[in-house]
């Protein structure tokens, strides 16, 4: 890679540059090209759609950034957001990682200062690609540190287009990960540099890199656990050195003090169980240093051995006791669920449905690895082997980083992102070593090529082995062929990456694209349509209830208050919404009223075939709701363990609020030629309940493709309403209802008659009583009861005022 084609070198010679200078020039220009490539390959989404923010979380980040630019840092830090988590609100300053917003605003200010009239949104959209470019630079230096500059260059190229990283850093994906991967790699690089040199300056830099990482993303926990693990491995394998001591201690103490400045982290950094490893290793380091010193002072080995045994036992015992005491007294908080679910992957599935419900928290299948890494997967083991053959402090680090992050990537799809830099670096070692050896062979006129350790060749399916033998006449041809093979594979990688970026990772998910019947691109812009409708047609203080996925978008684009959003900090509140969605309308309306909701928003894909809609997410609402409120039971919504919405669906499913809201008026709709009306295209079935009647909610707005449907909560019925618009007496239904409940309950004055009340709702008090009488007289109840007492009790239960001695007429 670091060598150049012949024609280029001829050209350069005419500039009268020395070989070293030529090499430098080429390296720098390659780096510049890679830098630009990393940026432009992430612009597909901007070119294809428009410059906008993607997905869900980025909308919150954008909203806070906007707030930061308008109100300044101190207001931002103290911001109490009453527009989300109604009625609880959210202390934004103390519950977010501000790194991303501050970075974007800083860039914005600098551009403004340089008299570039940009909008903050453009800055936000392009922040992630910009940092991705910077990551390539860091990857180059990192590769140079652990292997050589050739490996660095290859690493930069690989990471510039690796889909695993692109997935979270395309233009518009304004998310914490966008800057965090840069911070992560930077911290690691500087730390490795510090360990290699033992210099205080580099350790300081790594502390600040760590600080930036903490300010940007919760994934900093990975750094703070990997580094002590690395140090521990070095200690165990007898690689303790003064350089390590300086680097680690400086990084830990300063990094910790800096990290505690971020309010979201604060004292957790010394108190929570997740951060204990780093502290333990810190003390272990001191013990090591102390022992080293004693060894230096004591010349007697026997004495030292005895001393060693005592010290180590004491140190471990004291550490264990301290940890135990801390845990018991509550100073050290136990591990959080998210952390647990990484170590014991089945934990989240059984215990925390809210974590398990997120699609990016699903475990990774082999095809996802293939999709995100492509040939790097084949190169990775080869690179690992090379690293083991040339063990040094730096290669040990990259191997550990690679393996731990690979393991985590297997647990959760989204963590492929963290593994990407390591995979690129290790694969780069394999590629670079191979290509270098092959080219050396080609260039060497007739020198004897040395065998042995430097012979680290490999990569792709080639290996330059046969070429080693100088006496082979077709050695050079073989090398050329293998070189072509290697480049062919790499070009496949480039093709794959470009294709994946363009087709899979560049859709903004706020605007949906599909292929029409004739292969043309169809755009569904329903989300924005709905949010702008909310913004323009609802009162300023309207509260919107939806599943939490859409919370950030509603506040950011619709500018309306939401009940729950993507910051899933309060499980009970989310479960309440889940419960409302999975209850019957009568029960749901009470929850809805108690939350003071004005509008309910659902996302429905039955018309367009959009599959990540609320009906498909519904089981998670049931699970999360049922986790807090045991009245909600998952089996009630399933038929023989199967989830269905057609005629065979569970009765509870067919009548729950979510089903009604999604399929309201859908029974009349013809979605596909040759199919009956009410054919759900997302699930490919004809729906089971086509005659949906809503009582307490009314349709307010449905977008052009029915993807978003908004319902208004009707105000409570006016009890003095003489005209009684909605009230009709239906003695038959009322009778059945009362029969089901059993009048015993009425006699005892229990509450469960409430559902029956809806049947006489809208009737004037007296009419209600008459209606009841008709039901009783028709003898639909089939029981003889003390009419006067039961009636008045029932009416009182329904909050109707009739004279207690009311008696049915003849």
């Amino acid at each position, binding site marked *: 890679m670091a060598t150049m084609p012949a024609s280029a070198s001829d050209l350069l010679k005419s500039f009268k540059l020395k070989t070293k200078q030529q090499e430098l020039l080429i390296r720098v220009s390659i780096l510049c090209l890679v830098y630009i490539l990393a940026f432009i390959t992430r612009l597909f989404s901007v070119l294809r759609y428009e410059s906008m923010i993607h997905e869900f979380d980025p909308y919150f980040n954008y909203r806070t950034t906007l707030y930061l630019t308008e109100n300044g840092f101190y207001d931002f830090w103290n911001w109490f957001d009453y527009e989300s988590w109604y009625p609880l609100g959210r202390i934004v300053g103390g519950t977010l990682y501000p790194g991303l917003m501050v970075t974007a605003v800083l860039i914005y200010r600098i551009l403004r200062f340089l008299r570039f009239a940009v909008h903050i949104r453009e800055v936000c959209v392009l922040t992630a690609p910009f940092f991705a470019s910077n990551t390539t630079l860091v990857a180059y230096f990192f590769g140079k540190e652990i292997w050589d500059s050739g490996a660095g260059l290859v690493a930069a190229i690989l990471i510039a287009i690796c889909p695993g990283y692109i997935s979270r850093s395309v233009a518009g994906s304004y998310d914490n990960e966008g800057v965090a991967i840069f911070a992560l790699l930077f911290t690691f690089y500087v730390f490795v540099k510090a360990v290699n040199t033992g210099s205080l300056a580099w350790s300081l830099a790594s502390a600040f890199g760590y600080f930036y990482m903490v300010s940007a993303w919760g994934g900093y926990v990975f750094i703070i656990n990997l580094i002590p693990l690395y140090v521990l491995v070095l200690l*165990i394998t007898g690689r303790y050195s003064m350089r390590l001591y300086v680097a680690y201690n400086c990084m830990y103490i300063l990094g910790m003090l800096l990290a505690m400045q971020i309010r979201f982290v604060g004292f957790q950094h010394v108190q929570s169980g997740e951060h204990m490893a780093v502290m333990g290793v810190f003390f272990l380091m001191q013990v090591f240093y102390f022992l080293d010193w004693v060894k230096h002072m004591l010349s007697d080995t026997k004495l030292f051995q005895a001393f060693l045994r005592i010290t180590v036992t004491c140190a471990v015992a004291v550490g264990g006791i301290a940890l135990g005491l801390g845990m018991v007294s509550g100073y050290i908080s136990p591990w959080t669920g998210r952390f647990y679910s990484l170590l014991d992957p089945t934990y989240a*599935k059984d215990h925390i449905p809210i974590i398990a419900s997120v699609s990016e928290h699903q475990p990774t299948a082999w095809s996802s690895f293939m999709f995100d890494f492509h040939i790097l997967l*084949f190169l990775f083991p080869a690179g690992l082997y090379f690293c*083991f053959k040339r063990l040094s402090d730096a290669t040990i680090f990259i191997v550990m980083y690679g393996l731990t992050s690979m393991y985590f990537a*297997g647990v959760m799809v989204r963590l492929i992102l963290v593994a990407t830099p390591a995979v690129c670096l290790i694969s780069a070692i394999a590629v670079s070593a191979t290509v270098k050896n092959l080219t050396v062979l080609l260039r060497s006129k007739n020198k004897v090529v040395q065998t042995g350790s430097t012979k680290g060749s490999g*990569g792709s*399916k080639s290996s330059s082995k*046969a070429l080693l033998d100088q006496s082979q006449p077709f050695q050079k041809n073989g090398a050329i062929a293998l070189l072509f093979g290697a480049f062919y594979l790499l070009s496949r990688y480039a093709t794959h990456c470009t294709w994946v970026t363009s087709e899979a990772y560049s859709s903004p998910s706020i605007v949906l694209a599909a292929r029409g019947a004739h292969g043309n691109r169809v755009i569904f812009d329903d989300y924005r349509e709905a949010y702008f409708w909310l913004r323009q047609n609802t009162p300023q203080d309207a509260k919107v209830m939806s599943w939490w996925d859409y919370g950030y978008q509603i506040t950011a684009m619709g500018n309306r208050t939401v009940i729950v959003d993507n910051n899933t900090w309060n499980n009970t509140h989310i479960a309440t919404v889940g419960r409302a969605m999975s209850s019957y309308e009568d029960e749901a309306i009470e929850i809805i009223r108690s939350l003071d909701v004005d509008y309910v928003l659902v996302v429905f894909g039955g018309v367009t075939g959009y599959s990540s809609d609320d009906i498909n997410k519904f089981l998670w609402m049931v699970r999360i709701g049922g986790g807090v409120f045991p009245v909600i039971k998952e089996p009630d919504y399933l038929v*023989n363990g199967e989830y269905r919405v057609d005629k065979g669906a569970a009765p509870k499913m067919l009548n729950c609020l979510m089903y009604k809201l999604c399929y309201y008026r859908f029974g009349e709709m013809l979605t596909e030629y040759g199919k009956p009306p009410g054919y759900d295209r997302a699930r490919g079935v004809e729906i089971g309940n086509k005659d949906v009647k809503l009582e307490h909610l009314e349709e307010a707005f449905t977008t052009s493709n029915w993807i978003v449907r908004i319902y208004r909560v009707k105000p409570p019925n006016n009890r003095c309403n003489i005209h009684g618009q909605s009230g009709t007496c239906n003695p038959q239904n009322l009778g059945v209802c009362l029969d089901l409940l059993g009048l015993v309950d009425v006699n005892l004055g229990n509450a469960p008659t409430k559902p029956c009340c809806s049947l006489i709702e809208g009737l004037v008090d007296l009419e209600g009583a008459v209606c009841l009488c008709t039901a009783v007289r028709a003898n639909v109840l089939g029981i003889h009861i003390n009419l006067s007492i039961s009636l008045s009790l029932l009416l009182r239960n329904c909050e109707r005022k009739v004279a207690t001695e009311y008696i049915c007429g003849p």
Partner: protein
Amino acid sequence: MADHFFTFSIITLSLFVVASSGGLESELVADLLTLQAESKSGVIHLDDRTVSKFLTSPRTPRPYSFLIFFDAANFHDKPELRLRELRREFEIVASSFITNHNSSNTKLFFGDIEFRESQSSFQLFGVNSLPHVRLVGPTAKSLKDDSDVMDQGDFSRLAESMAEFVQYRTKLTVGPIHRPPALSKMQLGLITALLLLCLPLVAKRIFAGETLLHDPKIWLSGAFFVYFFSVSGAMHNIIRKMPMFLVDRNNPNKLVFFYQGSGMQLGAEGFAVGFLYTVVGLLLAFVTHVLVYVKDATAKRLAMLFTLLVSFWAVKKVILLDNWKTGYGIHGFWPSSWN
């Protein structure tokens, strides 16, 4: 015991019925309690004789409910039925129920029936598929039609959901589930003591630099294992409890090893692909660090050729499989005239 029973029955509405035939029924209950005490987990083993004694012959309403697990020893080795696991969970529910009520609850008993020895009982209940759990309430006249079947959803979360089922149907609380700890306290103490004893020894060896940990080969194989484990999606199989393969629905003799559709995979499929990935890497290692030292040029060439062919085949296979599985057809973005 009879005291308990009577206080209980006075509260319930079945007072009159009990009063008439109280003697006989209290005898039955006493028998059941003895049987329950004899069994280790509190699950009463029923056969045709006892079924008729406790369930068919007594007049309804009986003073107790029966939760019955239908077992078949000859199906224990079929993993897809999960009989052993469910049976174990059932026993946990039973023993938890009994402990939580101090073995004095006479309203609910747990039983199991084995297929081989009590085939007529199976017919009586109309059971023709397993796993099958049935609750016979006090008022059930016909065992087949009046009893409640526990459906799939109630097995799903094992003991916890079975307990919910019981609670829901019988209005009796099971209370907290007591699972036996993985290690008894005694074992735990022993292990800790052993660890503490070994600690100084281990520490000494570490300082001396002569443990297995100092051997890079161990680390290397560990590293390869972690790699293989991750990329084969083994974690996915563990979390989702995916089977190794499925049986083809249309043709029961055919096994399905590869599942079409991204985001899902079968066990064998993951391992096969993980193996292909690893093989390429290992061959490379072999070629670059072992083959070099082979003296014989022909052997070297042959090995080289073999490696190349195998690697080529593996890479091609994986790419093909991936394209088939995910349905993505990858193409470059060069000018359309080039195609």
